[in-house]
């Protein structure tokens, strides 16, 4: 079962929930895998250092235009939906902007002069590591300055496969990287915090997840200093509140040092065990 741990807002505790759930499943001897899909800023390895098994490079194909074969007809320029081709016909000048290219192949298809070939460009890496006897980690890590991490995210999810417990630690936001992750999930856990920012972003995340058509529930993190508005909103829309994690400086301290709350506190371990059970139960019904 693929479980995406997601949130529109950053810093609400996605990685915190994902790493604790995974650690618990691993401790319980379940077949499990955690994919770090926040490829722009992957943080799972800081909490769960595994033994690296393999590293795969992810490339995209970028067109190269041979100026000697190019007839400057402009058809590739017309076909490109991303403004990734600079074309100045009066100067007989044409150039590809690799950063804007989405590797769709439209220009290659368009070219009738055989002037376009494609060459690989490194987007990032996917690392696979072993954690326990039945547990694995995969990490997507995009190269800094790469515009879109989506191909790296897709590869990380593909490498993770689909085990009994497959956790996808999702990137923030609600656009392409978030959608690429959540789209592959059977269930989505939205992590939020009970503040005006948290609620505003939760509403956006909920509409996005509803639009993709995925079942979901909410975990409220850092509960306590915030207000009740989020609870009332969840109730009004009949959205399941899966778990509440109190605001606690001790939790923040453990997390900041790269520690795992479930490993250090049995009471929290029990809370995460109940959360995991609830999610897995969802699939069996």
């Amino acid at each position, binding site marked *: 079962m693929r479980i995406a741990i997601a949130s*529109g*807002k*950053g*810093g*609400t505790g996605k*990685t915190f929930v994902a790493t604790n759930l995974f650690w618990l499943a691993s401790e319980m001897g379940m077949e499990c895998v955690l994919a770090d899909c*926040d490829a*722009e*800023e992957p*943080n799972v390895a*800081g*909490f769960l250092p595994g033994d690296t098994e393999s590293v795969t490079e992810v490339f995209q194909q970028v067109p190269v235009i041979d100026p000697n074969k190019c007839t400057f007809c402009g058809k590739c320029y017309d*076909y490109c*939906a*991303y403004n990734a081709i600079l074309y100045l016909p009066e100067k007989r000048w044409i150039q590809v902007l690799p950063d804007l290219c*989405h*590797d*769709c*192949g*439209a220009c290659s*298809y*368009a070219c009738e002069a055989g002037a376009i070939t494609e060459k690989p460009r490194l987007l990032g890496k996917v690392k696979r590591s072993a954690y326990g006897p039945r547990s694995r980690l995969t990490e997507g890590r*995009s190269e*800094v*300055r*790469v*515009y*879109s*991490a989506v191909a790296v995210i897709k590869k990380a999810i593909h490498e993770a496969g689909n085990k009994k417990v497959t956790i996808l630690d999702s*990137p*923030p*936001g*609600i*656009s*392409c*990287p*978030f*959608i690429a992750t959540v*789209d592959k999930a059977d269930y989505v856990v939205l992590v939020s915090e009970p*503040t*005006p*920012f948290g609620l*505003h*972003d939760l509403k*956006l*995340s909920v*509409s*996005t997840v509803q*639009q*993709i058509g995925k079942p979901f529930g909410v975990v409220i993190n850092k509960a306590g*200093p*915030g*207000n009740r508005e989020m609870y009332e909103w969840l109730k009004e829309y009949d959205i399941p509140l899966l778990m509440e994690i109190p605001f606690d*400086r001790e939790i*923040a*301290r453990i*997390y*900041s*040092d*790269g520690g795992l709350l479930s490993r250090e506190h049995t009471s929290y371990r029990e809370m995460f065990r109940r959360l995991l059970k609830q999610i897995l139960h969802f699939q069996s019904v």
Partner: protein
Amino acid sequence: MLGSKKMKQIVILSGKGGTGKTSLAAALATIDGPLIVADCDVDVANLHLLLQPEDEKQVRFTTGAKAVINQSLCTRCGACMDHCRFDAILFHDGRFTVSVTSCDGCRLCMHVCPADAISMKESNNSFWYTGSFRNGWMVHARLAPGEENSGKLVNVVREQSRMLQEKRGVDTILIDGPPGTGCPAISSMSGTDLAVLVTEPSRSAFHDLIRVKELTDRFHIPSAVVINKYDLNGQITVEIAEWCGREGIPLVGMIPFEPEVVEAMLHCKTVVEWAPESTAAKEILSLHQQIFKFNRMGIHKEEEI
């Protein structure tokens, strides 16, 4: 007021989300003015919750297009599926359909279809807004759920804020950036004079800070660091400060973890307005001075005038 007539663009970034970019941006926006504020975290914009602008203009934005297959024209040849590199063409029950979440809007399927059965449908439920707030003018946007192209929408917000800057004759544009290092972050920082990197003392935030610094370096944008909630983990705060020293990045502020910061947000106010006597507010006032001083002293790119 700033001492120089030069136009300045300052972007707040962090790599990791939730380190306090928006709270800091809002506080900086309510100290000295007037200025232009641009919220470039268009996926999940929050700055308007604290600055509560009065929007004077609302403009619809087309984020992209998705392919649609007309079933009555489709001959089931499968050419679209063969050419699609995004695995966005699905085949079930004898019909080809488009996965809206996978379609990248490249239009290749439309071009290859021999039956002209494919057209593109635009998504235009996103908006951008300009208006005034209590200390200047603001540009912000709302990306519709499930829509793409946030980098392009960021570019629109940037362009609109430059136009406002010219129209209103103010020096500074303050940009609240998105998390990450991808296209919206790159679009938010390109051509700015200073990047203020907000971090917190955790292994994750430090790791992400190093990556976002790599990004600002590649774009030759000078950076300065602010450690938020620095007292949550003294040891990592020291490590970050030492790293700043080695990298030659000015550490311009250390904001303590204080309940007033959360209280201010709950009341939709900035901390300098809500609790001006708090240590956090005083620290922000001091770092505000430093940031603008750096700018005046010309740590920014000299060629960008």
